[in-house]
């Protein structure tokens, strides 16, 4: 589903990725590990089409609307409520039965009670749950998750694990500093230096 050949990315003089080859088959679940600055986030952004490689090529066999991208930032508007944020994304992703899907994903990640609260009032962990709701709302075929367990409490981590391990067998590229949490689910590991 993802094929990269001699993939390189530089920011000015700084090399972030150098001649990376990567093959992620459909249904594959790849953990991306490495120290800070090793290019994990950059690799996910390249896969999402949010950045262009300096050299080499990357091919992602999924259209834009089939990608679920979890970034460092939750990508939600602080002045909108949790439900309004999901409703906006639901409209842009043309999700059928949008209201029901928004409600269902909020329940799955334990945010239903807070659905009418503004995202700006959320704690870090609640924002991460809302970001996960946004990521999974349109039932993506390809997941690109950057530190998905960041800020989550034990219950939140369990809900995410259930989402990843139990609900569907999606293709996923997960950048994490804590690979043990998903070791049983992973089909491969990519260690960036």
């Amino acid at each position, binding site marked *: 589903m993802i094929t990269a050949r001699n993939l390189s990315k530089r920011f000015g003089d700084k090399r972030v990725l150098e001649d990376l080859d990567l093959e992620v088959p459909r249904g594959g679940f790849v953990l991306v590990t490495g120290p800070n600055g090793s290019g994990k986030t950059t690799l996910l952004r390249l896969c999402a089409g*949010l950045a262009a490689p300096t050299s080499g090529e990357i091919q992602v066999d999924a259209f*834009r609307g089939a990608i679920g991208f979890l970034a460092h930032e*939750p990508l*939600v508007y602080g002045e*909108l409520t949790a439900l*309004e944020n999901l409703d906006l994304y639901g*409209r842009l992703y*043309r999700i059928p039965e949008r209201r029901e899907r928004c409600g269902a994903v909020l329940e799955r990640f334990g945010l239903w009670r807070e659905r009418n609260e503004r995202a700006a009032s959320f704690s870090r962990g609640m924002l991460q749950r809302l970001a996960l709701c946004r990521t999974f709302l349109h039932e993506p075929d390809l997941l690109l998750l950057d530190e998905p367990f960041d800020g989550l409490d034990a219950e939140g981590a369990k809900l995410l694990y259930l989402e990843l391990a139990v609900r569907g067998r999606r293709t996923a590229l997960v950048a994490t500093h804590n690979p043990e949490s998903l070791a049983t689910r992973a089909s491969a590991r990519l260690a960036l230096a």
Partner: protein
Amino acid sequence: MTGYAADVAALARKDLLLELRSRDTLPAMLLFVVSALVVFHFALPADSSTHAETGLLWIAIVFTALLGLTRAFAAEREQGLLDGLVLAPCDRSAIWLGKTIGVTAFLVLAELVALPAFALFFHAIGWELVAAVALADVGIAAIGTLLAAMAAASRARELLLPLLFLPLAIPVVIGGVGASVATNPASFLGFLGLYDAVFAILSWASFEYVVTE
């Protein structure tokens, strides 16, 4: 509503809702335009011409628009939200059009206060001035939103936006002042209409390249 129109409506509605709740932009625009007109009122000599007064109104409008444009992508910039919008499967020009509608709405609201204030401080306004302002709003919002998106990606955004926007606003000032004071305003209004059409099409077509690497 068709898919594209629904996307634009959802994005414009979002911007209006954000402003309704945060009240970051519109109060600042209102305060600025009224303050500028008050300053101009005291700065101009009592026997100043109506041409000079009209010119100052257009300066106030352009700088008020600039103030609004500096905040146009504030929410997206501060929270990295443009990535989220760019990843959505909608046409990326819908992001520009939704934002342009929001900017136009704020500008119109500011002018609903500015034009009566101008009439109070200076002289009565005619339909030509109102028509010119309405046409200018569209052009200013169209090109200004594109430039605001470009500036939002830059570190020197506060510097970059005026540098890019003000030269492109000169034709608006020429057309606006011309339509407001000429005996035959039709040609100037036509010029403003043409400016709107050209820059709206250019901005609509090029926005995708501005928000993607």
